[in-house]
């Protein structure tokens, strides 16, 4: 009976120490100013696998964001699903959308971009960024998927919750009635 609380405290202490050492916490044992990359080198019979820091490939071409908004809100772009060069920045090499933790967008923009990315994939515009087992050719898809499709961006509707949706609809109705 005595042992149970003791083990509990021990576990909590171990968790705390693990938390402190992880890079997500504020404390760092090494300088975490650069990106990481896993490198595998062969020296004779030995195979050395090590994680090393590398400078970001996007460093020179990055647009500075001075406002407090997210990078897409501050630029105020009208992005279409055919703008592949922009959408490919938010996508991993296998084609899936990166999470908000990585992209740093606001929730509404994240939802819009993720839908635009799926549209671009369905239209077969980003065949380069697909998993390895993909056939890489939209004409080899099944049934209706092999034919050309385009999408209307006005069909994307993103609301934070039910109440904001109601609010926005009421304002729009009022504007239409008053012909504003």
């Amino acid at each position, binding site marked *: 009976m005595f042992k149970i609380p003791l083990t509990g405290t021990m576990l909590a202490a171990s968790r705390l120490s693990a938390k402190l050492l992880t*890079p*997500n916490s504020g404390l760092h044992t090494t300088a*975490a*100013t*650069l*990106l*990481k*990359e*896993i490198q595998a080198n062969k020296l004779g019979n030995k195979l050395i696998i090590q994680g090393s820091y*590398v400078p*970001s*490939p*996007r*460093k020179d*071409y*990055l*647009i500075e964001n001075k406002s407090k908004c997210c*990078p*897409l809100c501050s*630029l105020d772009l009208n992005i279409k699903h*055919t703008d*592949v*060069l*922009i959408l*490919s*920045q*938010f996508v*991993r*090499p296998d084609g899936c959308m990166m999470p908000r*933790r*990585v*992209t*740093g*967008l606001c929730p509404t923009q994240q939802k819009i971009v993720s839908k635009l990315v799926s549209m671009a994939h369905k*239209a*077969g*515009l*980003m*065949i*380069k*960024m697909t998993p390895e087992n993909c056939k890489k050719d939209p004409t080899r898809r099944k*049934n*209706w998927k092999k*034919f*050309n*499709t*385009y*999408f*209307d961006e006005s*069909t994307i509707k993103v609301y934070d919750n039910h109440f904001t949706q109601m609010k926005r609809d009421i304002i729009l109705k009022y504007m239409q009635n008053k012909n504003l």
Partner: protein
Amino acid sequence: MSQFGRVKQWNTFARCWHLFDATWQNPLQCSPLIEKYLKGLHKPIYHPFVDCGDHVVIMNSKQIAFPGEEWRRRVYFHHTGYSGGASWTPAWELHEKDPTMIFRKAVYHYMKGNLFRRVVMERLHIYPDSNVPEEIMENITNQIQPLRPIPKTLDSYSNEEIEKYPKIIDYPQDYLLSK
């Protein structure tokens, strides 16, 4: 008569041949444009009883595009006349069987139903690929401008172009780059 006026007269009284490339074009949106040239609505001498229409050659009709879920949702109806003879075919199934059928039906159904419709439709030549016979290619004098731009795929850009394009976001500091 001036030189320009003479050309205008040739264009009105001769049967011209127009070429239309249907890659990534919506046939339902293009049909009013093609009807204009088939009937000769763009000519100053147009009258419904005057046979002044032009020929239109449509190529790459296999590569037409539809918006969203239209390929599944659009259904073509046919009835044999016997009881239980009704059939509904989705657009993608019809396009598999005959890649020229959807475009022909779109233009045919857009036009007003009268005795001239079948005559006008005879002047429409549709080909699924770019392999148009030379006898027809010889006559062509004009190309109709397509309505929608053909979207560019990521493969069409070079690696250097993709790398040097202005970037909106950067990776976070603890991001693991994959090769």
